[in-house]
């Protein structure tokens, strides 16, 4: 299974968890039109019309970030692989009041490849972060108006990260010394809980909360490369320990039926990035603790989407969102080289048959050019700054199938 994905939005949250939802600006906490609700709001499962609803999709992300410095006239551009986050959801009715199912999705990820030894190589050369969430879920309907849903999430993931050991260290041939850390199969547990209300035929309201997950890498592989011979006893290949937080997210939203054909949705996500204080990697050799302050802040994402049943076979979707960056001034590290963004989305579904529907989605994420700096890099006891202009662009195209009976 290929889950490499490119982070966009703030930090390394990759909001691409459903093709139908993405078409509508990635709203969905109050929508009940497909098993994508397993992710967006487990409480919605019991409101699905069909006995069985299966959704599967893949999104292709093309992202690029550029860096330049006006003082030194240096520039760099990422060469990120195409990210392909996947999503799979199944929801089945047990009886009138209970539905159950499972979701597999990848809400966090990051894949950024700067040119090796670029100007910011002491901060990052490349990073690849993957995390797959597997969520068995149950949903219970109190009555025709209220429901809840809950699913524990089993998270398994890995990270590979490479940076140069300092702004200067080279071996006697001038090759930059670097460290590559790689953790695989790190797992942890969390949960996803939701509540939904349908006070009238016209609208529904949803609230969902996905818990924070602490990925704890212990005794994973740290490979020190191009280490000068006389430093090899200080920097042998070793193991490392590190914690990575996949922050909690609270979503509140409403879906409003403008007519029998047209639905409007608004969601607000609050992502609790404030928990991400520092990227601390402890090396079990002379390198010791590498502490890299991040000091993220909690942020909101505002989403709006619309869906229109054009004819019997075709549904069109559009949406937009505003994504606040969790990165504060002076903490802009190029492993997540993105600032506030505005997303425009479009999507469509086409019914191939009574039971099978084809979904498309498209996302264009706009970033404004801005000047950022990371001011907390420690160079032999002196704190130095890495500053410059950044600009990013993300395009994503998604395809999915929705099977229901």
């Amino acid at each position, binding site marked *: 299974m290929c889950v490499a994905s490119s982070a966009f939005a703030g930090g390394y949250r990759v909001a691409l968890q459903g093709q139908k939802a993405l078409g509508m600006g990635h709203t969905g906490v109050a929508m009940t039109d497909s098993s994508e609700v397993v992710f967006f709001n487990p409480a919605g499962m019991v409101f699905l019309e069909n006995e069985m609803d299966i959704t599967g999709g893949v999104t292709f992300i093309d992202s690029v970030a550029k860096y330049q410095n006006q003082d030194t006239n240096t520039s760099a551009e990422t060469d990120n692989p195409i990210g392909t986050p996947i999503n799979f959801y199944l929801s089945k009715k047990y009886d009138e009041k209970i539905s159950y199912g499972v979701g597999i999705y990848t809400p966090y990820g990051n894949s950024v490849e700067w040119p090796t030894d670029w100007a910011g190589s002491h901060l990052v050369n490349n990073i690849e972060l993957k995390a797959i969430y597997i969520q068995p879920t149950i949903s219970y309907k109190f009555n025709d108006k209220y429901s809840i849903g809950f699913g524990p999430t089993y998270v398994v993931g890995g990270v590979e990260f490479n940076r140069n050991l300092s702004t200067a260290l080279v071996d006697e041939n001038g090759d930059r010394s670097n460290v590559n850390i790689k953790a695989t199969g790190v797992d942890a547990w969390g949960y996803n809980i939701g509540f939904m209300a349908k006070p009238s035929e016209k609208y529904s309201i949803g609230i969902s909360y996905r818990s924070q997950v602490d990925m704890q890498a212990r005794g994973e592989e740290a490979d020190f490369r191009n280490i*000068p011979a006389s430093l090899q006893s200080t920097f042998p290949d070793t193991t490392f320990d590190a914690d990575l937080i996949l922050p909690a997210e609270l979503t509140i939203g409403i879906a409003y039926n403008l007519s029998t054909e047209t639905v409007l949705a608004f969601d607000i996500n609050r992502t609790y990035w404030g928990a991400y204080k520092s990227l601390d990697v402890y090396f079990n050799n002379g390198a010791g603790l590498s502490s890299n302050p991040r000091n993220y802040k909690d942020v909101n994402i505002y989403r709006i989407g619309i869906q229109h049943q054009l004819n019997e076979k075709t549904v069109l979707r559009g949406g937009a969102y505003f994504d606040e960056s969790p990165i504060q001034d002076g903490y802009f590290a190029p492993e997540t080289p993105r600032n506030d963004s505005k997303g425009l989305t479009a999507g469509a579904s086409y019914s191939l048959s009574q039971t099978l529907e084809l979904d498309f989605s498209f996302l264009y994420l706009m970033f404004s050019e801005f000047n950022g700096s990371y001011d907390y890099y420690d160079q032999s006891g002196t704190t130095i700054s890495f*500053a410059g202009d950044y600009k990013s662009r993300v395009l994503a195209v998604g395809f999915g199938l929705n099977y229901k009976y």
Partner: protein
Amino acid sequence: MMNINQMIKLTGVVTACVIISACSADFDSPVGDKASSSGSADFSNFVAIGDSLTAGYADAALYLSGQENSFPAVLAAQFAKAGGGSFTQPLVSDNLGGMLIGGTPTLDNRLVLDAETESPAPIAGTPTTEAIGSGLNGTAFNNMGVPGAKSFHAGAAGYGNPAGLPAAANPYFVRFAKDQATSSMIGDAAAQAPSFYVMWIGNNDVLSYATSGGVVDAVCKPISAPSACDPNAITDPTEFAGVYASLTGAFTTTNPAVQGMLVNIPDVSTIPYFTTVPYNPVPLDQATADTLNAAYLDYNNAVAAILGATDPDQVARRTITFTAGQNALVIMDETLDDLTGIDPALLSMRQATAEDLILLPASAYIGTEDPNSAGTTPPLDKPWGVGTPLADSDVLIPSEISAIDTARAAFNATIEAAADADPNLIFFDAAAIMTELNANGIDYGTGFIDATYATGGAFSLDGVHPTARGYAVIANEMIDVINAGFGASILKVDPGTKTTIFFK
């Protein structure tokens, strides 16, 4: 409220966006598109003349990547975007940096830092650069930097004549003198009739005195009395002024419209060779201090007995005492009264103060009984700087520093006046850059360097010459001055992409 038509329109916009790539990640003003202009300067034929600093020397050697990152090479690459022509350098054959003279390995390879011993040592390998028969003679080079050259060497015909080695010629110039027998550095440089030149000469006119610890008589006259001139003596400032005028004049003669930049001489007390070793690096416990005090008791008493009545100040300076904690080194000071005629044990020694500068090589043998830089070993159980005074060649004492400062101030006045006197010439204050590197360091936007030895990034392992990154910072500062002086807009480079020191 968005209707269906608007939705279709939005979809269309987004699709168009992809097709025409209108929504790229390009910057509004990419640095790659910045225009360079030469302003009133003409960089079409750029020549740099000087010494090791011009050649790109670092880590006590001239090696390939050092040359490729010499400040003139960095400047030339930027000038090339503003009408600059090609820039040739007498490149050595390898990255080891050592040199053979007539097949005999003569100059050491570049230094690399051994982290285990925490000391620099030449990189292993057999050098392939040959001084004689290099194949470079016969053509002129844009980079006329010759490591070791003093001001008057630049005008000396035959400075590249192998027959003159080692005293009257310089193997680096032997390698690439256009005509080994007759060429002078300035002759080869000026014959190219440069449109623009940078001259940074005169460093060695004080530096060789300083790095040798000021052992020889301070000042000599290399032009009028060359035979009385020790190679490490300071150049007489009046003769320096005469030589300097002849050097600038040579360029004006071949091209009356020549433009250029004259660079001054840094203060030795700002470079790590002289600032790294503290005057008081000797840690002692009370027992050791007591033992040492007992050993110096006879000396202290004898000095007090002889000089107590006439020169109590000197008695105080010469009284050697140790305490628990950090202690000042014991050093030779030839300005003290010579008492060895009375008793050979009464050496002209005292303890160092913050006014003395201890030279970097001494760090290798202070506190040990290893051979010093002169190859001398101290008596058993009397380590250097503690039981045995550091030699004159290990220390610059205030009178020597004063001689250096006096000459340097005069040289710099000459250089600045020469730049001021010619509207086509500008002045670059390299001394100010070195002072800044030593005092505060320089933040170049994507990183930071300072003059701390080995770890600061600005200076290579010889403690005198910059690293490639240090040279790039200097080149950037020069670009600022050139831009201001000639109304040019030459682009700076990224020092962060250049190397600093190399580890073994």
